[in-house]
C-alpha cells in the first residue's frame, strides 16, 4: 500500500474541497439571485469541465501555467517555482476540473428555496451576504453536503488532469489514481486490486453519507 500517495490524495481532495466551497457558494448564489443575462455565460463556463475531456483541460492548464505564457512566467516568478508539476499546480487543476461538481448541487439547492422567503428577507433589509448565510445555506444544507462530498470524491478519482499537470512525482504529485495506473502497467494486479478497493470504499462511504442524511426515518414512503 502506497501510504504516501494515499495521504497526498486525501490532502489534495481536502484542500480542493475547501477552496471549491469558498468559491462555489458565492458563485452559486450569484447564479441563482442575479438577474443579468451574462450570468448564462458564467454558468456555461462553470459547467465546461463536465464535458471537456480531462486530458484537454490538463493540456490547456499545462500550457497556461508553463513558461510559454506571460501568466505562467508571472506565477513562476511570484512563487519561485513553476506551478506545473507541483502540488499547488495540482490544486489549481483540481479546483477548475471539479468546479461544476461543487457549483451545480449548490445552484440546485439554492434555487429550490422558496422565492417568497428570499423576497421577505430582502424586504427586511438582508443584503446578499446575509441572504446566503442566514437563508440559502441553512435551507439548502443537503446540497452543501452533496457539493462537498462530490468535490472531494471527484478530486480523489481524477486522473487525466493530474497526469497532465502533475506528472508522477512521489510525495508531490503522485496520487492514488496514478499509483493504480502504474500498478496495472506493471501487471501487479494484487496491488492494483487493493488500491482500487480503497478508491471504491471511499466513494461508497461518502455517497452513503449523502443519501443517509436526506433519508427520512422509516424510509421515503413512510
Amino acid at each position, binding site marked *: 500500500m502506497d501510504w504516501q500517495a494515499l495521504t497526498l490524495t486525501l490532502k489534495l481532495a481536502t484542500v480542493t474541497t475547501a477552496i471549491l466551497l469558498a468559491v462555489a457558494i458565492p458563485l452559486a448564489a450569484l447564479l441563482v439571485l442575479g*438577474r443579468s443575462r451574462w450570468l448564462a455565460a458564467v454558468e456555461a463556463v462553470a459547467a465546461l469541465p463536465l464535458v471537456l475531456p480531462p486530458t484537454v483541460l490538463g493540456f490547456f492548464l499545462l500550457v497556461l501555467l508553463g513558461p510559454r505564457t506571460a501568466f505562467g512566467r508571472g506565477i513562476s516568478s511570484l512563487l519561485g517555482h513553476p506551478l506545473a508539476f507541483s502540488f499547488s499546480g495540482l490544486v489549481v487543476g483540481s479546483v477548475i476540473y471539479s468546479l461544476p461538481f461543487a457549483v451545480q448541487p449548490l445552484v440546485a439547492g439554492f434555487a429550490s428555496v*422558496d422565492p*417568497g*422567503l428570499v*423576497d*421577505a*428577507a*430582502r*424586504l*427586511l*433589509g*438582508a*443584503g446578499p451576504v446575509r441572504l446566503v448565510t*442566514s*437563508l440559502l445555506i*441553512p*435551507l439548502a444544507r443537503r446540497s452543501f453536503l452533496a457539493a462537498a462530498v462530490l468535490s472531494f470524491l471527484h478530486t480523489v478519482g481524477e486522473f487525466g488532469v493530474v497526469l497532465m499537470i502533475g506528472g508522477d512525482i512521489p510525495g508531490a504529485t503522485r496520487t492514488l489514481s496514478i499509483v493504480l495506473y502504474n500498478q496495472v502497467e506493471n501487471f501487479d494486479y494484487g496491488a492494483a486490486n487493493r488500491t482500487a478497493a480503497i478508491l471504491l470504499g471511499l466513494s461508497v462511504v461518502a455517497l452513503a453519507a449523502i443519501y443517509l442524511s436526506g433519508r427520512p426515518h422509516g424510509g421515503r414512503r413512510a
Partner: protein
Amino acid sequence: MLEFALNAGRGSFHLQIECRLASEWTVVFGPSGAGKSSLLRLLAGLDLTGYGGVERARIALDGHALTDSAAGLRLPPGWRKTAMVAQQPALFPHLSVMANVAYGINDLDRATRLTRTEEMLALVGATDLVVRRAQHLSGGEAQRVALARALAPKPRLLLLDEPFSALDGAASDGLLERLQQWLRANRVQTVLATHDVTDALAIGAEVLLLREGRLVAQGPATEVLSSERERLTRRLNPVQSFLPE
C-alpha cells in the same frame, strides 16, 4: 403620501396606473388577475425597473423618490421603509418565531430588539408562540407572526396582499382594531390588496378599483364598491334578486 406612476408589462399583462394616495388606509380592490399583487410588488421594489418588462416607473413616499426609472433610481427593497405581508406568510422555517420577528431589526441592540419583538407579538395576539418553530405553526398563526415581523422595523409603508384570508377570528379578537390603532400611532400608511368586497367595506378606507391592470375608479369604499356590493347581495340571495321590488 404615496405617489406612483407605473407603466409596466410582463407577457400579455400590462399595468398602467397613475395615482396619489393620502389616506391612512387604501384598499386596492379587483378580481383575480387585475394587477393587485403586481402593483404591490412594484411598490415594494421586488420587481425591478428595466427588468421583467417594466417600461416606466416613478414611486415616491412622503416626497422621497423610491423608484424613478427616468433617473435610473431604484432603492433596494430593504431601503424603502416598506413592509409587505403576502397571502403566503413566508416565515423562515428554520428559525423560531422570535428569530423571525427579530430578523429585520438586527441593527438594534439586544434589549431593544427583545422588547420590540415582544411588543409586536402582543399586538398580533401571538405572545404564546414565541418559542415555537415557524414550520410548526398553523396558517393563521403564521400569518400573525408574518405581520409582527413586517411591523417590527416600524416601516413607513405597509403593503398587505390579501393577508387576512388565513386569519381566523381576526375581527373577533380585535386584531384589526389594534392594528389600525398601532399604524395610526406610528404614522404608517397602509395599502391592502383584496378581491373580497367584505374586507374592503369593513375597513372603510379609500378604494382603488383595478380591472385588467387599469385604475377604473378611486374614492370612498361605499361609493366605489356599491355595484360590487349589489352584485354580492344578489349572489348571496339569488331568489330575492328575481322578485319584483
